[in-house]
């Protein structure tokens, strides 16, 4: 089955187009690097980046830093995700609270969260706490807003059925609301994951002695561009993987197929 699935996936026009886009980007990059049109140290050749990536992935030290960042992002996403979900459900259920508070979430959502970093340092210190807090704060807004929107999209019939069966609040949340709002919520989590990564890494670049953000800013400050790009590529790939995993766990694949 698997061997048959792989060629089928490659035969998919979307997959083919994606491959073409990636290859075009790589070829364009290499041509620019070799052309001399751009400063070569800023646009190093793919060979140099590949060499740096090999060194990076061969270093046990890198995995320690990656582990630090992953745990900070994971914890931030868990805290921000759960609180965002709860707030979203409450806002989705209660019209008064929604009208009172939701506009604040919309205003605060796009605010660059780095401006809150000094407050996070004050509350949570200079260690991992402040980075987790940045991740939490970053992902809270998209998840809360998606959950609230998801709540309002639930078929009223489902809610009436739950109430007619005299389901309590917990049962309503776990049996009716969460399953019915799964897809918009998972989309919110995917958006939240992206901004949690950005928030955490940004915090690590500002004040840290460990983590991938710390390594990236060190490479940049030494003008070690191949190493910096190698780290960004690895991060990009890991983010894609995490995003796909969240989508799969949330059942978005089945939705797309349907």
């Amino acid at each position, binding site marked *: 089955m698997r061997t048959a699935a792989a060629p089928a996936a490659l035969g998919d026009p979307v997959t083919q187009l994606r491959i073409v886009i990636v290859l075009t980007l790589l070829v364009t990059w290499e041509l620019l690097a070799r052309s001399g049109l751009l400063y070569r140290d800023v646009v190093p050749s793919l060979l140099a980046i590949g060499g740096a990536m090999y060194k990076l992935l061969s270093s046990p030290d890198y995995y320690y830093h990656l582990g630090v960042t992953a745990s900070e992002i994971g914890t931030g996403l868990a805290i921000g995700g759960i609180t965002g979900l709860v707030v979203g459900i409450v806002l989705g259920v209660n019209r008064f609270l929604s009208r009172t508070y939701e506009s604040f979430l919309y205003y605060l959502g796009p605010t660059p969260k780095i401006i809150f970093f000094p407050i996070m340092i*004050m509350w949570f*210190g200079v260690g991992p706490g402040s980075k987790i807090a940045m991740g939490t704060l970053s992902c809270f807004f998209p998840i809360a807003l998606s959950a609230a929107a998801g709540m309002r999209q639930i078929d009223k019939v489902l809610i009436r059925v739950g109430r007619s069966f005299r389901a309590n609040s917990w049962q309503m949340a776990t049996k009716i609301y969460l399953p019915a709002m799964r897809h918009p919520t998972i989309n919110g989590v995917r958006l939240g994951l992206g901004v949690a990564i950005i928030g955490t890494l940004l915090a690590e670049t*500002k*004040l*840290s002695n460990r983590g991938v953000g710390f390594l990236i*800013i060190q490479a940049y*400050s030494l*003008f070690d561009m191949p190493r910096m790009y190698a780290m960004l590529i690895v991060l990009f790939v890991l983010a894609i993987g995490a995003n796909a995993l969240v989508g799969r766990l949330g059942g978005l694949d089945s939705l797309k197929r349907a």
Partner: protein
Amino acid sequence: MTSIAPLAFAAAAAVMASAAPAAAVDQLKLTIGQRGNWDTAVTQLGSKAGIFKKHDIELDMIYTSGSGETLQPVIAGRADAGLAVGTLGAIGAYAKGAPVRIIAAQATGAADYWYAKTSAPIKTLKDTAGKTIAFSTRGSSTDSIVRAFTKEFSLTAKPTPTGNPSATLTAVMTDQVDVGWASPPFGLKEIEEGKIRIIAKATDATLVRGQTIRTIVANARTLQDKKEVFARFMQAYRESIDYMYSSNPQVIKDYAEFVGVSEATARKVRDEFFPKSLLQPDEIKGLDSMLPEAVELKFIAEPLTKEQLAELIQIQKPAKH
């Protein structure tokens, strides 16, 4: 039973004695800016050599991306001390009521240098008429140095903010700025490769040579509570500086490894750019010229009084033997 009891007691006492530490180790949490510079590597190299441990101090060093990030945790009481905090920034924070005290000088004078592309016709500062000259950000030490250059050498070059050395190098190499700035070891590789040439050093300006541009700061309350610990910290800091300028080859090896450069480059950084006097911690120099500059750059509304300066600057002097 009676014969066993004294033995058991003695054994228990021996176990307890061996478990107890010889002396209590005090921990200090430091925020440090400008990672990789020779002058900001004092605690790193001193720790590696066991100097701070000898003084019963353990350091937790957290690196920051700038003076602001170094200062904030100290003000919030989340870090015990901040290293490489701009003097003007520390003065400004104090004037606004922040609980911050300067406990030592961190850099007096500067090792920063200004450079141009080797293909450009600029060889000295005098060749910069009508050109652009870089500094990092408004109010930074590089801004002060460019102002000093302009005054002392009557320059007509246009000062341009370009951010950190990496961004500045890119701007210079892509002809967006004519003269860039950097702090060694950054740029030494490009100099060796013949891509850029040094046209001036910060110390070419007389004013800069006598100015303490960066300091070590502590939270006022922490300083009060841990005065004796800070005294030991500063003693270890001084010994670390002595070690860094000793003939011990290990220090160059450790610095090269810390920054990721060759040992030859590491030695060059120390011997050609950082005279030992630059790292002296026991005197804040050049306040007379810096206070008016702090007013001009709006760090403070008016110069600090003598009483305010006495409260702000509490140098932890070496113990007299």
